[in-house]
């Protein structure tokens, strides 16, 4: 078990290093000179050279890479070529906003998917199960931004129950924070929930066919008790895999949803960076997203081991 932990941690660290090289390399091979882009086409060659020197762009690529990586490790993400402001604090602020959104979305997805998927599996031959199945199929087909627009039209414009957009930090006004969180979190969570429901359904269906569930019933457990005590943990293994993949999707989905709801998250920061040609900012945000996804995968790996004792003895 210890061996497996070390192995997984090693894989995590190596992926981090490799992906940092890739992110850096992608940005480095992009055509165009960041200093020229930042100053505009009319800037003099001297001014461009001065800016290149100022930001260290005149040094060799490996030097630049290690400089950037060292900064990352210290939590210093460098200075924007465009706004000349420190990138770190911005990214940190925006990351918190996006994390709230993603976590709330994931919780909604789980709260929807776990019971709905289980009922669909347990009643897969009855009308109620089929109806839920059809409903989730519709959910799978709806993109998050469309769900967002629909939610705004119904709950903000027609009913006026919730604000259509905006963001308030939780420390400033918790009630307003919650109100403004509900619609974007729902538009992320419901769509992901619909997808997750289908995986929960097939995982539970699989488990329902298992012999040990029959053993559990032969002991005197009623069907639902047997599924609860013996099925859920076994069904959780494939679901956790999908959950990990979905968290990555949610991070990307948040980019779009933040746009729809005018939320100052990491996604909006990334899009702003792209439209302002703020290369270092884009590079940093992409790296933060990559780290988040790798971290999720790492946690998923650990969860496997916690859920399935068979993996603990494997080397």
């Amino acid at each position: 078990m210890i061996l497996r932990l070390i192995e997984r941690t090693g894989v995590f660290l190596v992926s981090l290093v490799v992906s940092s090289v890739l992110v850096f390399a992608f940005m480095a091979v992009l055509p165009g000179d960041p200093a020229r882009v930042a100053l505009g086409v009319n800037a003099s060659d001297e001014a461009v050279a001065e800016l290149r020197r100022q930001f260290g762009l005149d040094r060799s690529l490996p030097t630049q890479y290690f400089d950037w990586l060292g900064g990352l490790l210290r939590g210093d993400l460098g200075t924007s070529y465009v706004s000349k402001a420190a990138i770190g604090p911005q990214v940190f602020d925006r990351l918190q906003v996006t994390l709230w959104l993603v976590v709330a979305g994931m919780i909604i997805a789980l709260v929807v998917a776990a019971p709905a998927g289980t009922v669909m599996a347990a009643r897969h031959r009855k009308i109620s199960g089929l109806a839920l199945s059809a409903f989730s199929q519709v959910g799978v087909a709806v993109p998050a931004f469309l769900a967002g627009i629909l939610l705004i039209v119904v709950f903000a414009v027609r009913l006026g129950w919730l604000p259509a957009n905006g963001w308030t930090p939780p420390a400033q006004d918790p009630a307003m924070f919650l109100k403004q969180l509900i619609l974007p979190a729902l538009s992320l969570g419901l769509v992901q929930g619909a997808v997750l429901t289908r995986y929960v359904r097939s995982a539970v269906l699989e488990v329902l066919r298992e012999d040990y569930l029959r053993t559990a019933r032969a002991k005197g457990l009623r069907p639902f008790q047997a599924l609860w005590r013996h099925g859920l943990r076994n069904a959780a293994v494939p679901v956790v895999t999908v959950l990990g993949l979905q968290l990555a999707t949610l991070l990307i989905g948040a980019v779009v949803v933040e746009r729809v709801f005018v939320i100052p998250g990491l996604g909006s920061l990334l899009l702003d960076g792209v439209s302002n040609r703020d290369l270092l900012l884009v590079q940093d945000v992409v790296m933060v997203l990559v780290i988040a996804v790798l971290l999720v995968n790492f946690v998923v790996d650990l969860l496997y081991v916690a859920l399935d004792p068979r993996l603990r003895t494997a080397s």
Partner: protein
Amino acid sequence: MNDVLTVRGLSVTVRDTALVSDVDLTVGAGERVGLIGESGSGKSLTALSILGLLPEDVRAGGSVRLDGVDHELVGADERRMSRVRGRDIAMVFQEPMTALNPTMRIGDQITESMLIHRSRTKAAARTAAADLLELVQLPTGTLRAYPHQLSGGQRQRVVLALALANDPALLICDEPTTALDVTVQALVLDLIVRGVVDRSSALLFITHDLAVVATVCERVLVMYGGRVVEAGPVNEVFTRPRHRYTEGLLAASDLESTSRRLTTIPGNVPPAGRFPSGCVFRTRCAHATALCEETPAWTGSETEGFACHHPAGVADA
């Protein structure tokens, strides 16, 4: 003494196809009864319908009564059946590799059956689980193990331990040794017999292996095509079979035969629901005549008899 299990006119159908028809079966208190037949003869379905654990689209009809349980088991709701399962009737299944929950410790899986029926407190259940493991000759440390750490034979002994946990009046074993190595089969059989004898539990033992029935059971029922074709004490049935199918089955498994060729029953077991009308065995029987198109009546008593128009061993009478 009352009979523990009384089955009358049991039928099992899937949609309109009959898989088991008109099975009568009685198991006395502490009696060990074998149910033999080839695969597809309906013996497992008979066991599952006694326990009410048939697959979703399979229906049982007829009557199953258990001594001490004041309601009919066929068609009983889950609430009532769940009280009977694991307490009055317990079952050991064929496949030990998949019968245990892979994510739960052995100890928890054994104590669970005692805790569900509140037959013991938590502490007492843990002690009892250790005793049960000792009974099936597994070390006490097995309590903390997970199923994947055990071999097939060890797992089957765990399944036996948890089936015996509440001292059931009836233990049903469905081919419990078929999936095991020959070397551990004898041990598991021995543990089963010892387990039921110690508790004076009755045993319904399902197998296709005649030798196993001969060592474990006192009485035997032979099934073919979803019907009981012959019944009687093991000695009687195995030495003087009356039904032509039993006769063929015995000839096919005669290990002391001097002839070099293996004797077999001609033809194959028809697929479920495709058995002929009348005598279910007539399409494979060398003695069949036009008379066999009618269903043969049961000849003999409730516990000993056969259903055949041309029984073996009459020519000399």
